[in-house]
């Protein structure tokens, strides 16, 4: 795997300069690698991972199971991509099992989500059924625990 990518995946927030220091590359070389990863479509973008409980906007998140009819050409792709285009849709996956698409969506409040479902989603040609589940509490977000670990006072600062 590309060393820049590996370092990114370790998850420690480092500037391109610091990444260069760690990897023995110049800042420009790191930037070029990052550019390349973007061009290849490997690296889609950058977002901070926020604690949903501390999100000031009081956003509501929901997952929606969607049953859709596949089409003769392209199967689920056309409709799935169309649904993905809505800004509220954070993620969209084709699933095996009892339904076809799983959407993760976010909105300012419950009403907005409901609106999205019955105005935008359910009305689409090819969407046969939806089931909406609201998220109540996050325990782990993209690999990060929400509960903070206690400070480690007992670990000695120096040991042999």
């Amino acid at each position: 795997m590309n060393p820049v990518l590996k370092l990114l995946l370790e998850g420690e927030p480092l500037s391109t300069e610091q990444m260069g220091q760690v990897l023995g590359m110049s800042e420009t070389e790191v930037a070029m690698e990052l550019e390349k990863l973007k061009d290849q479509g490997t690296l889609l973008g950058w977002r901070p991972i926020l604690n949903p409980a501390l999100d000031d906007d009081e956003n509501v998140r929901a997952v929606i199971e969607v049953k859709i009819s596949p089409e003769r050409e392209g199967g689920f792709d056309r409709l799935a991509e169309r649904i993905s285009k809505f800004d509220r849709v954070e993620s969209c996956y084709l699933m095996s099992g009892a339904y076809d698409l799983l959407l993760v969506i976010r909105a300012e409040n419950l009403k907005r989500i409901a609106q999205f479902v019955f105005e935008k989603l359910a009305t689409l040609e090819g969407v046969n059924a939806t089931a909406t589940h609201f998220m109540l509490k996050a325990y782990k977000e993209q690999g990060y625990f929400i509960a903070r670990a206690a400070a480690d006072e007992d670990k000695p600062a120096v040991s042999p």
Partner: protein
Amino acid sequence: MSTANRFVADHVAGLPRSGIRDFFAIVSQMKDAISLGIGEPDFVTPWHIREAAIYALEQGKTSYTDNRGLIKLRRALSTYVEENFGMSYSPDTEILVTVGVSEAIDIALRAVINPGDKVLYHEPCYVSYHPSVTLTHGQAIGVPTSAEDNFALDVDKVIAAWEPGVKVLMLNFPTNPTGGVTDRAKLERLAKFAVEKDLLILSDEVYAELTYDGQHTSIASLPGMRDRVIFLHGFSKAWAMTGFRIGFACGAPELIEAMMKVHQYSMMCAPILSQEAATEAVTNGAESVARMKEQYHRRRDFVARRFNEIGLKCHAPEGTFYAFPSIQSTGLKSMDFCKGLLDAEKVAVVPGTAFGPSGEGFFRASFSNSYEQLITATDAIERYVGGLG
């Protein structure tokens, strides 16, 4: 003056206390110091291993175990050692589960040393080697290793250090604090020397999995060596399990039996929860070990490169999570350098002399730390060294 001193045994009173403990005390007083002085992983034990301990506790596993350790653990260790080191040991008679490598070293020495017996060890080395020998009323003879040789053991120096009465040779590769390893050819020469002088070898291989360049070879795997080597290993480092206090020893049945006697009367058995956790670690831990090792590897490359850039000559440690840069260019003594660095920049590293006289002129920096800490600390060291000029 306290008079209770008169109760303390002579050989214990004689153990060095050294300035190191005082230095450690200063560091622990200092609130916001960045410490590269920690001799343990910065990772917490992988969850699947912690979970195994929790499960065992839930199941009510709170009893003593067989003195030798749980049979399922000894079986798993036997398989692991065979697959990864190439030696085959019987779980019944040739493996003993201990409270860390620390206890394994202690009971191995107590099992074989008669008062006055001599023990060769290479230094700089882990702090407990010399005192452990002293505590058995043996006599420890240090053989220096040097930076010129990337801290591999110079076999000629070992041979030259031999004298009548030497019974044991203690080895530790990869080495704390130098990160040195020793290649097969040298191990073969050492093995030949051990046969010639009829020595027993205690081989502490607690960092074996954390070998970055090339393959780790255990001296116990060389032809004819199995029965004169006690192989010591543990879970503290590669599995990040220091607090579990769990390790093991493998060797000829007579030696393991002798160690067993000491263990049985002093320790009884290793804690059952740690044994359960170790069983999970040795059976299913390879992926976790590989993940941590990969991160150490990258940090090693960074740290070694930085020290060289700063003008502190540093070989890239082939194993462990320690770099051992030279401060000879600064003209300072190790302790003065480290105290000065702590005062000026609040960065703690361990003076090389903590690990033996030939550690003078070096310090140990642990790279078991986040990149950010490593970057900040090496930048601070650069400023400090620059300001010395």
